[in-house]
């Protein structure tokens, strides 16, 4: 296990370093001077020179990279050019929206997918299975932002149960804040739940066909007990993998969904930063998101090594 952990940690470090090169390079290849790019055409040479100084653009390329990467490591993400506040503070404030949104939709999608997957696997090949799997096909095909618009149309405009958008802030109390996050997280959760239910179903069915389940059944174990006590545990490996992969989709989805509901999360921050040409914010937020995805992948690897000891040797 130690060997496995060391190998994975090494891979994690390499991924992070290469990722930081890529993000840094993309920002560097902007034709011309980033300072001039940020200030637009009408900026005076003095302002551009002053900004170059603040951005630390005066050093050599390796020096600039080291100061940026070093800053990221110590939690210093630079100062936003348009907001005039440290990027770290901006990100922390936006995370208070994006993180609960992601967690809520992850919980929702798991809560939907587990019973659906179990049901379909138990009724394999019968009408119930076919109906449920047809629905999941539909769930996968629905773009989450369109589903979000339909939800708004029904639950916010039609029934007036929930707000159509905006975020009151956690200061307004947990209930109004969660109410504002409910429709967005449902919109995010649906396609994820559909994928998860399908993976769970096929993993369960595969496990159910194995000899030890047949033995357990032959010894008098009931179908449902075999499913919930034996198959579910072994079906967890592919499900965990998909959950880990979904984090990246969830993040991407959240960026779009935040724009549908006007939620002040990381996604909206990126788009605002792009339109305001605030490259410091774009660069840092992208790096933070990539970092989060790489970290979650790492955590998933470790998690299924714990669930399934056989995987430790293969890594």
């Amino acid at each position, binding site marked *: 296990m130690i060997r496995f952990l060391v190998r994975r940690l090494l*891979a994690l470090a*390499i*991924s992070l370093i*290469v*990722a930081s090169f*890529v*993000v840094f390079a*993309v*920002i560097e*290849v*902007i034709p011309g001077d980033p300072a001039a790019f940020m200030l637009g055409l009408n900026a005076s040479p003095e302002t551009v020179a002053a900004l170059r100084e603040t951005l630390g653009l005066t050093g050599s390329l390796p020096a600039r990279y080291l100061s940026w990467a070093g800053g990221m490591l110590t939690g210093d993400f630079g100062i936003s050019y348009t907001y005039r506040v440290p990027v770290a503070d901006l990100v922390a404030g936006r995370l208070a929206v994006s993180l609960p949104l992601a967690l809520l939709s992850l919980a929702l999608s798991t809560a939907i997918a587990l019973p659906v997957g179990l049901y379909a696997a138990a009724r394999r*090949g019968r009408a119930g299975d*076919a109906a449920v799997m047809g629905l999941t*096909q*539909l769930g*996968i*095909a*629905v*773009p989450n*932002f*369109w589903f979000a*618009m*339909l939800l*708004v*149309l029904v639950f916010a*405009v039609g029934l007036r149960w929930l707000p159509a958008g905006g975020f009151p802030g956690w200061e307004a109390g947990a209930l109004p804040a969660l109410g504002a996050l409910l429709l967005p997280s449902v919109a995010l959760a649906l396609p994820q739940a559909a*994928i998860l239910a*399908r*993976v769970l179903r*096929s993993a369960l*069915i*595969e496990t159910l066909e194995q000899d030890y389940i047949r033995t357990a059944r032959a010894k008098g174990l009931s179908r449902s007990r075999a499913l919930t006590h034996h198959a579910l545990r072994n079906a967890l490996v*592919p499900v965990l993998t*998909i959950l880990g992969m979904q984090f*990246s989709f969830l*993040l*991407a989805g959240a*960026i*779009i969904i935040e*724009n*549908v509901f006007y939620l002040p999360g990381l996604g909206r921050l*990126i*788009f605002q930063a*792009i339109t305001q040409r605030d*490259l410091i914010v*774009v660069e840092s937020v*992208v790096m933070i*998101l*990539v970092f989060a*995805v*790489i970290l979650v*992948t790492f955590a998933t690897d470790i998690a299924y090594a714990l669930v399934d000891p056989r995987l430790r040797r293969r890594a």
Partner: protein
Amino acid sequence: MKTRRMRPGLALGAALSLAALLLALLSLVWTPHDIGALDIAGKLRGPSAAHWLGTDHFGRDVASMLMAGARTSIAVAVVAVGIGMALGVPLGLIAAAGAGGWLDEIIMRGNDLIFAFPSLVIAILITAVFGPSALNAILAIGIFNIPVFARVARGGALGLWTLDYIRAARVAGKGTARISAEHILPNIANLLIVQGTIQFSLGILAEAGLSYVGLGAQPPTASWGRMLAEAQTMVTLAPHVALFPGLAIVLTVLGLNLLGDGLRDALDPRGRGRQA
């Protein structure tokens, strides 16, 4: 029993995919109305005999715009899948030919790295730097298709390399590249076609998402995602402007997914249905 149950899915999938393709092709020569024709007086009308799917906020014909939008979606997805296949398949074949070696290690670790990047975030980064356009959307989607095809090609090829007729070809003096091209590639074509169908549908969803947030095709090119973005503020006044583009996306993606699943089951008798 399994295959028999899947056949209606395959037929439905093929029909929906074909319909989207034909409408896109038809839009090149004919649409019910000119998509550039504005009619402010007749804006946001519901479906009628003159405008089958109604008109949008500029009085443009929704049905015509959907047909032209299909063209954009399909074109973006086709090129993105093409990029993924053209670069990913050779990489996967090279990795499989030298399985376990340093080249294999480098290619697969590079693959993992691209997988680790949240694709939409990178698409945003690309468009932040180079400006929004259909071309940048294609690039952003295409890059993330490369590791998918590399993995599928490698996985399919690995098993083949151990087979006797490949060894025989080796003994007959054929080089690695020639064996890969002449014997391995034709035998993994099925896998690649199925994966291509699935990536195609993902590409259409991705293009819709990107153009919805303004990072895809720019006006005056018609695009389903942008139609939805424009419809968002008018959804209470005229739900049809939001309904039809969404339905177009759902039906096309559903069709391609059903087609991919059906092909997988039809081409691989041992297939247990799609994993995800």
